[in-house]
């Protein structure tokens, strides 16, 4: 275990912690262990013994992610340049708060909700204050890293434009903002744990992660627009309802201190900006023991769930499966893709992306020519973007934390790879790709009108064939049968190539719309191709269901 920079930094303030009534040396040790755990978290499974101290690099939070957040921060510069301080700071803080809050929920829930601490730390003679403080510092440390990455571009801009005082005060407000976000997130978790069980909380965290990835993509689309705001003159006045918007509080404090005019509402909101974060954080620190106790609910999660029937899946399964064993595997995989948390974490965000991508591609044209004139264009072809992420789903499917359970494939008599793969592809289509396609298609019908129905049918059949092509080109491994690996670069290239292929489909479709009767012929062609590929596409020379023993390194 190395001595982390954070720890040497904290050492300077050890007297402060002791004054707060916490056992600093113990807290330091806990933090050291936690940081070490985080540093080693990246490659988790199946590293054999010999990795020791030397491999602890200071990759607490992956540098790449921080760079991403930094780039995001660059796009905020135009907002910081706006003349109206009140307006510009409102926007800046709104975006900061959104990014940091979602990052906290998506990436650091594991820190906030680590339940191993219960049996390991709580049973030792360490007082609760020290434990809660260690946890708070641990989370704050990560949040400061992200905050720094996101805000540095804006901070520098403000230093240049508004001067040193403004810059310093900006830093203070950011600290206030962070403490409010941490406290608020903890409150929300506490509330959810009060009302529901731990499983539900994990689901909610999952949804937030999905929402985050979608907003990031959509958000980038608006970035191009953001510069045009510079020219427009926006009148943004204070109003009573802004009392409920924390970003506006912070902006008010700027407007009061650095703006020209002050009035009661502005001053009230400025005071809120100082008082609420401090109060919230103080309450959080005070309530931390209660928070920890509600975490107990995550430990003894004994709730058995009601048996839910998935009518849609059952009907679809009966329709698409041709044999009893295929039906069984179909149901199994449908459940696994819906429940396995690691799979969901890795794949559902892409699914969300796939859902919105077609609209994202519509955004810029919609801005320039207007929604109305979209209807007569051929931009409905952007719906192909919905299939962009099918390859990455197929690439993720073989991996699982419980890959050892894959012995079931081997002991099931008469089960061939063909059957498993057939069921797998059908699950991918029916459970993952089809719902996205249907939603996208419904909205596109609304935008473009019913004359695109034949095109949507073409898209459907193209999607089926595309899924099959993806399946042929990715390494064929049984679903949920291999441990997660870190380096999947070579596969990433396959994924990229397949994404290009979707453009080919869209291009061919476009050609078919120009040629007379092109669409009918194309549809016929696709139909035959789909039939052939499903009929013969699963026959491989190598039918054995041997599962690689875990000693042998998988290629």
């Amino acid at each position, binding site marked *: *275990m190395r001595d982390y920079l954070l720890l040497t930094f904290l050492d300077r303030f050890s007297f402060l912690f002791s004054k707060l009534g916490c056992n600093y040396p*113990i807290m330091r*040790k*806990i933090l050291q*262990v936690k940081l*070490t*755990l985080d540093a*080693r*978290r990246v490659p*988790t*499974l199946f*590293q*054999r*013994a*010999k*990795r*020791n101290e030397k491999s602890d690099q200071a990759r607490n939070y992956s540098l790449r992610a921080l760079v991403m957040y930094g780039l995001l921060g660059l796009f905020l510069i135009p907002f910081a340049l706006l003349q109206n301080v009140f307006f510009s700071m409102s926007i800046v803080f709104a975006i900061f708060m959104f990014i940091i809050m979602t990052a906290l929920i998506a990436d650091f829930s594991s820190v906030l909700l680590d339940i*191993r601490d*219960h*049996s*390991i*730390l*709580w*049973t*030792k*003679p*360490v*007082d609760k204050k020290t434990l809660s403080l260690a946890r708070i510092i641990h989370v704050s440390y990560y949040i400061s890293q992200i905050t720094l990455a996101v805000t540095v571009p804006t901070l520098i801009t403000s230093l240049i434009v508004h001067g040193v005082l403004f810059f310093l005060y900006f830093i203070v407000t950011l600290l206030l903002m962070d403490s409010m976000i941490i406290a608020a997130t903890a409150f929300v978790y506490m509330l959810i744990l009060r009302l529901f069980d731990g499983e539900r909380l994990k689901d909610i965290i999952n949804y937030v992660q999905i929402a985050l990835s979608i907003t990031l993509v959509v958000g980038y689309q608006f970035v191009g627009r953001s510069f045009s705001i510079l020219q427009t003159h926006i009148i943004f006045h204070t109003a009573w309802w802004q009392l409920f918007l924390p970003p506006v509080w912070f902006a008010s404090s700027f407007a009061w201190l650095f703006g020209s005019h002050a009035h009661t509402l502005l001053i009230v909101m400025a005071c809120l900006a100082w008082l609420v974060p401090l109060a919230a954080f103080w309450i959080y620190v005070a309530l931390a023991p209660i928070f920890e*106790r509600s975490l*107990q609910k995550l430990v*003894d999660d004994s709730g058995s769930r009601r048996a839910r029937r998935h009518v849609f899946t059952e009907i679809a399964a009966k329709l698409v499966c041709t044999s009893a064993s295929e039906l069984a595997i179909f149901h199994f995989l449908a459940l696994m893709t819906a429940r396995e948390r690691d799979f969901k974490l890795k794949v559902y965000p892409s699914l969300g992306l796939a859902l919105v991508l077609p609209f994202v591609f519509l955004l810029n044209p919609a801005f320039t020519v207007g929604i109305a004139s979209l209807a007569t264009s051929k931009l409905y072809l952007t719906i192909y973007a919905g299939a962009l992420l099918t390859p990455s789903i197929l690439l993720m499917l073989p991996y699982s934390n419980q890959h050892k359970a894959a012995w079931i494939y081997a002991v099931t008599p008469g089960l061939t790879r063909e059957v498993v793969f057939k069921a797998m592809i059908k699950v991918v289509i029916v459970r993952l790709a089809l719902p996205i396609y249907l939603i996208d298609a419904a909205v596109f019908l609304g935008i473009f009108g019913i004359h695109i129905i034949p095109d949507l049918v073409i898209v459907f059949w193209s999607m089926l064939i595309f899924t099959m092509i993806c399946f042929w080109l990715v390494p064929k491994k049984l679903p949920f049968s291999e441990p997660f690996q870190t380096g999947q670069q070579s596969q990433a290239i396959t994924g990229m190539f397949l994404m290009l292929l979707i453009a080919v489909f869209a291009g061919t479709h476009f050609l078919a719309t120009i040629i007379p009767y092109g669409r009918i012929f194309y549809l016929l062609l696709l139909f035959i191709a789909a039939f052939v590929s499903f009929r013969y596409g699963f026959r491989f020379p190598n039918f054995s269901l041997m599962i690689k023993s875990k000693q042998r390194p998988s290629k």
Partner: protein
Amino acid sequence: MNSPSPSLAISIRNLRLNYGLKTILQGIDLDVPYGQVVGYIGPNGAGKSTTIKTMLGLVTNYTGTILLFGKDIAKGDLSFKGRIGYVPETAEMYDALTAREYLVFIAELYGMERMRADRKAKSLMHLFDLDHMYEARLSSLSKGMRQKVLLISSLLHNPDLLFLDEPLSGLDANSVMIVKDVLAELAAHGKTIFYSSHIMDVVEKISDRILLLRSGQIVADDTFEALKEKLHEDSLEQIFNQITGFEQHEAIAREFVATVQEV
């Protein structure tokens, strides 16, 4: 029973606990003098682990009184935890740490000095024949090895009272024998041991006293010999079956196989 006694290692009066509407513990009274080995048995879900967690201060919304070493654990003085060693049922550890890092860290939490903890942990690992695993990540250890590391981590600070929740799970027959003897030896040195297990013949052999818990109540509390005599049974397994009112095992087995045969 009267008021709890401060001269005992454990003294519990009327311990009750609810999770929402579910009653987990319904009025447990218990006195354990120093140096006693108590086997705590009962069917799954009877509240064994919960009792242990409550005594460790992990569960706080209980009613009743718990005195450990003569002090009420609800009073906020945490020093009692320093005299306890705990092996949790879930065998939870920080898997990314090596055995050395983990053991030294735990010992430090108990206030031990680093070098001493390291030396002690190393010798204990050696005695469990785990020298080669001292620098290995816990995630690469087998179930039995992990259990041994857990056991060591609960003993490093030389505790006076041991709470062992299923300490033998995953251990092979030879290791069980070592651990059994270690427990007996510890008891001979005046340590109080409170452990739960499902392995009846081990409980039978090493316990000074057996507690049987059923739906949150202690339904039997005596030495093995006394229980045998009272209930006219030969083994703890039979005693267990009789007290927990489980006589249908043959009937269930028959029906089970019949259902299997249906196809």
